[in-house]
């Protein structure tokens, strides 16, 4: 029989319902995998008891003949950006070390209500700022993948949801939550050969999730395949009166609606995504993706998104501006770490606390954000960026007149080695070139594995949809998944 940790969310759910194993057996198997994978540094806090308690509740309910909850028997990982009641929540920052929320985020609560259990709090880039998981105050997350014949260089799992990516790829959990501000679900998913979807802005409540950039932040699931993403997303989504930007719409039955049939669908190929210096292997993957779409019955159309090249610089104004304000609350007064040098006054205490508590990348973005909002610069930077953002959204609007979905690569490269891009922040930012436009426009977008590159590392394809068309995105992802036949996995070395 296959190992329980090799099962998908659907496999665990269905196996548990069929009585093939108990929820406790599944939880114990994953708890053991987590405990045995410390080298990957995917978790900041392990919560085996939480997973077991949920499992026991699921077993007891099954025993009592109750109808099973949607995620009964399924333990998952929780990105450490979601506030979890009674469990330390840090956003991978020293400034929140020891912070134990007295509240539960809406998204995590929905998952527990659906019967899922928590294996632990997953590592991430500090305050979700980063694309390689090297900005965490709790150490780098290491990808389970290694280059074929490329030595044993430790690779990045991507970021910011790097702990989630690494843990799923290493079979430490079947699925995990992620958050995506500029690509933080999709890029790490691509780097480790799993699937992940960022839904339409407003589908998942932001309440109780540590904010990075409010107008961009969206939670979403990461899992091994498209079906699991659909199952998880159904549990995570839904209107929340506590979030003023939450969409007051029913949650569609995405899993039930899954279909790989692309007949009648027009897939747009945005020509501006063919950037200079794109590796041939990415080009080749994209071409294969186009063929798979055609094979699935779709019509392929070339489209133009003329403002694409401005998405990244616009993002690097809007996101840091919002972050500089969102992170002002970390001041050492009401929660988190406080640094109080001898004789310091209140303002000195703020400065010392924030200097000691924030990592370099967080500081860098706070400084950029403060700068672009400061007196005399607001219109030239922030207002201009929000105008460009409107143009980017208009580009998509125009594209939807001729196509239903867009297909692009997820990232401009495969995973790189830890340390490789750390010296150059700008080179790091360019990682998000394909994911940021959909974030700026609030569109649903997903990454699915498309194959391996010459080094034996996973590459991802991205599908972008109209607002609220998660179903279309998932279905296109499924069509790719079925044709890519991606079964590769990292050999266990940890």
């Amino acid at each position, binding site marked *: 029989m296959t190992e329980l940790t090799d099962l998908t969310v659907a496999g665990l759910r269905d196996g548990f319902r069929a009585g093939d194993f108990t929820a406790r057996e599944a939880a114990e198997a994953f708890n053991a995998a987590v405990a045995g994978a410390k080298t990957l540094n995917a978790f900041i806090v392990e919560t085996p008891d939480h997973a077991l308690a949920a499992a026991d509740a699921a077993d007891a309910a099954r025993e009592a003949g109750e109808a099973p909850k949607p995620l009964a028997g399924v333990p998952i990982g929780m990105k450490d950006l979601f506030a979890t009641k009674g469990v330390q929540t840090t956003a991978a920052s020293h400034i929140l070390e020891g912070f134990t929320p007295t509240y539960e985020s809406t998204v995590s609560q929905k998952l527990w209500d659906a019967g899922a259990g928590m294996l632990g709090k997953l590592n991430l880039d500090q305050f979700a700022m980063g694309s390689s998981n090297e900005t965490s105050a709790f150490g780098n997350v290491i990808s389970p993948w290694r280059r074929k014949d490329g030595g044993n260089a430790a690779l990045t799992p991507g970021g910011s949801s790097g702990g989630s990516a690494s843990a799923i790829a290493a079979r430490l959990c079947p699925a995990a939550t992620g958050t995506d501000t500029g690509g933080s679900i999709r890029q790490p998913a691509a780097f480790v050969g799993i699937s992940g979807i960022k839904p339409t802005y407003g589908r998942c409540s932001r*309440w109780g999730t540590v904010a990075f950039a409010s107008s961009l932040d969206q939670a979403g699931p990461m899992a091994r395949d498209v079906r699991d993403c659909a199952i998880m997303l159904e549990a995570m989504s839904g209107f929340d*009166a*506590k979030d003023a930007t939450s969409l007051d719409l029913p949650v569609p039955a995405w899993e039930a609606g899954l279909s790989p049939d692309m007949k009648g669908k027009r897939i747009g190929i945005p020509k501006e995504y063919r950037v200079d210096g794109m590796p041939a292997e990415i080009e080749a993957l994209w071409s294969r993706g186009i063929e798979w779409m055609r094979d699935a019955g779709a019509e392929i159309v070339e489209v133009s998104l003329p403002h694409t090249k401005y998405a990244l610089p616009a993002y690097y104004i809007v996101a840091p501006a919002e972050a500089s*304000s969102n992170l002002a609350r970390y001041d050492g007064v*009401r*929660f988190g770490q406080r640094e109080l040098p001898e004789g310091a006054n*209140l303002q000195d205490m703020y400065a010392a606390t924030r200097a000691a508590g924030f990592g370099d990348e967080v500081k860098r973005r706070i400084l950029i954000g403060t700068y672009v909002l400061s007196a005399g610069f607001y219109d030239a930077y922030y207002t201009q960026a929000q105008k460009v953002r409107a143009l980017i959204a208009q580009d998509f609007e125009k594209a939807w007149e001729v196509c239903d979905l867009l297909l692009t690569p997820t990232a401009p490269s495969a995973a790189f080695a830890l340390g490789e891009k750390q010296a150059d922040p700008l080179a790091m930012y360019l990682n998000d070139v394909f994911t940021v436009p959909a974030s700026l426009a609030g569109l649903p977008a997903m990454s699915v594995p498309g194959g391996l590159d010459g080094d034996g590392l996973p590459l991802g394809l991205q599908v972008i949809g109209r607002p609220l068309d998660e179903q279309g995105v998932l279905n296109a992802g499924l069509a790719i998944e079925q044709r890519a036949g991606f079964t590769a996995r990292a050999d266990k070395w940890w």
Partner: protein
Amino acid sequence: MTESTYRIHGATGDWEVVIGLEVHAQVTSKAKLFSGAATAFGAEPNTQVSLVDAAMPGMLPVPNRECIRQAVRTGLAIDAAINKWSRFDRKNYFYADLPQGYQISQLYHPLVGEGRIEIALDDKNPDAGTKAIGVERIHVEQDAGKLMHDQHPTRSYVDLNRSGVALMEIVSKPDMRSPAEAGAYVRKLRTILRYVGSCDGNMEEGSMRADVNVSVRKPGEAFGTRTETKNVNSVRFVMQTIEYEAQRQVDVLESGGTIVQETRLFDPDKGVTRSMRSKEDAHDYRYFPDPDLLPLELDDAFLDECRASLPELPDAKRARYEGELGLSPYNAAVLTAEAETARWFEALLDAAGPTVTAKAAANWVISDLFGALNRIGKDIEASPVTPAQGGELLRLIADGTISNTLGKQVFEIMLETGEGAEAIVEARGLRQTSDTGAIEAEIAKVLAANADKVADYRGGKDKLFGFFVGQTMKAMAGKANPGVVNDLLKKALDQ
């Protein structure tokens, strides 16, 4: 508009004062602007604080409809343009009373645009005229928490009960030219807010406080540099602030100095303002639209409801009291100055019924009732005599059951005993008589007893008429109808 003649007499000539006020008024609501925590005054520290107000990680604001509604109603009450599209901005600065590190306010697109408030140039003299003070805007924003400095030698304590309470910031144009105008503006604004019910106007509890912008100039010249004195919390202090600050600025300018645009603080003990150095570097607020909130879009139905729910406002009411009710301008002004007074007066008219004239009722309220309330130190809301009881008393006077003089006695007894006017009149036999026979009999006695004075009167000493009235009333133990007495006396004397 009447030109103000208020001037600071300096060594170099006369100076004019230019005043603008930013009044922060706490919106009357049960819950805070962006959280469900209560707003009641005087609770134990940090007990009216939600996790949103404490700015815990991941907490989000959701606006309170009632706060928006009250701000819109206030805007409508001052004839202001209501912006159907507005939005909230963040004002970023670090302070211990500001948990988020920013105040959610409205800079770029406020809820309420330009309006106006009519002030009386002299409250005591309705003929002195009025002046319209422009209101630049009203925006909605969060209040900050409170810092306590005197509870520990080296620490300040933070109470977030007020953090997130809804405020309206009502920003005037720099249209005022004297402390008296500023005082009248604040009083009038307070009256309007209390009529509308959007703010209780309680300055002692901090429900209303003003940032006072003052500059001076030689009449006719361009505006000078202004200073802003923050959080001045009474009408008297607002006026003191202006007097002090204007004189200070004139002194600085005349001694060759320049005015620094700065934030100042009023010290009520010393009656002076001083510079607030602690907030010196906080001027770059990095305003930007709050990304946690969408634009606030109001529909016609919402605005219609706001409009329909407005009561008759003080200016309209005063005009009606003068026009329809025939009150004097002074009485109309006095009776409409407070919503409670007007409410009491109108209840009194209802209770008194058609036989009592509004004029009589107004006079009674202003002289008798106010006098009594003043004496016993009570507000009109706490009056021991109800409008219904007052109405009963006025009816007895109007229909001649008791005289005016007796009415005053009855009212005193009502105040003491709480009994009704009719019961008092019956029990004590105070009912006045119009029985001409009885009165004529007494008149005959009075004339007989004062034959010399009768002769004098008939010889041309008209003034003696009052004497006869007094003697007759005395003989009737005060219960004779004065009108009847007058008529009969005249008849008897003129024979």
